């Protein structure tokens, strides 16, 4: 696979729903070995990591109820909340278009959704539907790039 081909499958994977790395693995697997390649690539990426995740979760479960674990969780909870907010900022950074005017519009739209979701209580499905509609009508004038994101 050439660097250009990789760049293209990366850009296409960013358009997929769900975990983009799964889409990337699937697209690379298909190029390499058809549908068998898709299954092999996705299973290779997900199954060992999922097994490790389950093992870690089960291991934590053994000590989860202890006072020490409860105290640690009181610090981990705000950290995960902060990580979630940072993920939102990274998502906007990765998705915003180039150019001052476009960036200003994009950030304003994103802030509008922050207000709608955090302060007006707009339900998730309604927000996503509105985002899709507004985006398809008004936010498409620049193609997404293959810039790497840390959103995963």
């Amino acid at each position: 696979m050439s660097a250009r081909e990789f760049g293209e499958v990366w850009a296409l994977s960013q358009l997929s729903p769900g975990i983009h790395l799964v889409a990337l693995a699937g697209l690379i697997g298909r190029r390499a070995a058809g549908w068998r390649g898709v299954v092999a690539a996705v299973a290779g990426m997900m199954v060992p990591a999922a097994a490790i995740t389950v093992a870690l979760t089960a291991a934590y479960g053994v000590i989860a109820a202890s006072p020490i674990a409860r105290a640690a969780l009181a610090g981990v909870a705000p950290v995960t909340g902060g990580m979630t907010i940072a993920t939102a900022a990274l998502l906007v950074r990765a998705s915003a278009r180039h150019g001052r005017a476009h960036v200003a519009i994009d950030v304003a739209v994103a802030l509008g959704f922050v207000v709608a979701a955090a302060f007006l209580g707009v339900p998730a499905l309604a927000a996503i539907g509105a985002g899709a509609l507004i985006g398809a009508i008004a936010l498409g004038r620049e193609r997404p790039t293959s810039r790497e994101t840390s959103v995963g």
Partner: protein
Amino acid sequence: MDALALFGVFLKASALSLGGLSSLPLLRADLVAPGIATDDQVVQAIAIGRISTGPNGLYIVSLGYLVGGLVGATVALLAASLPPLVIVPITALARRWLLTTSVAGLVRGVAFATAGLLVATGIGIITATGNPSLWQLALAAIATVLTYRGTLHPAIVIAIGAATGLAFGR
């Protein structure tokens, strides 16, 4: 909650999200609000997902395990793995359509909506106890900055949170 219903919840969250953690708002709405999972379990799953190997989105496997044991983890893994793969046949059939400005705009709009939902969810997690302490708010702010800058491994950021919790949380 039976396995099929759990699969449906995870599949919906995965199919309507864009990237790793962005399924969280839908999952929190469908699992925490009805009392199937707790915010503590969500926090554990996110933290373990960040510490573990693989994509960030695998936190849902941890959440699946916490809610439904090995069966829950398995349905979560399937639900996380299937929706992204719709891109494979669509790319084969309609690659040009995928690269149109309308599709780019649609994905961008969903990303901005998801960002708003993630901020709301983050605030929800931070304030889940009802009355977060000053040190907890400071930790949340520090974690936000460190994660955005991306210079420290997430496991270290989580360890900082755990250590601060042990110091102040008892």
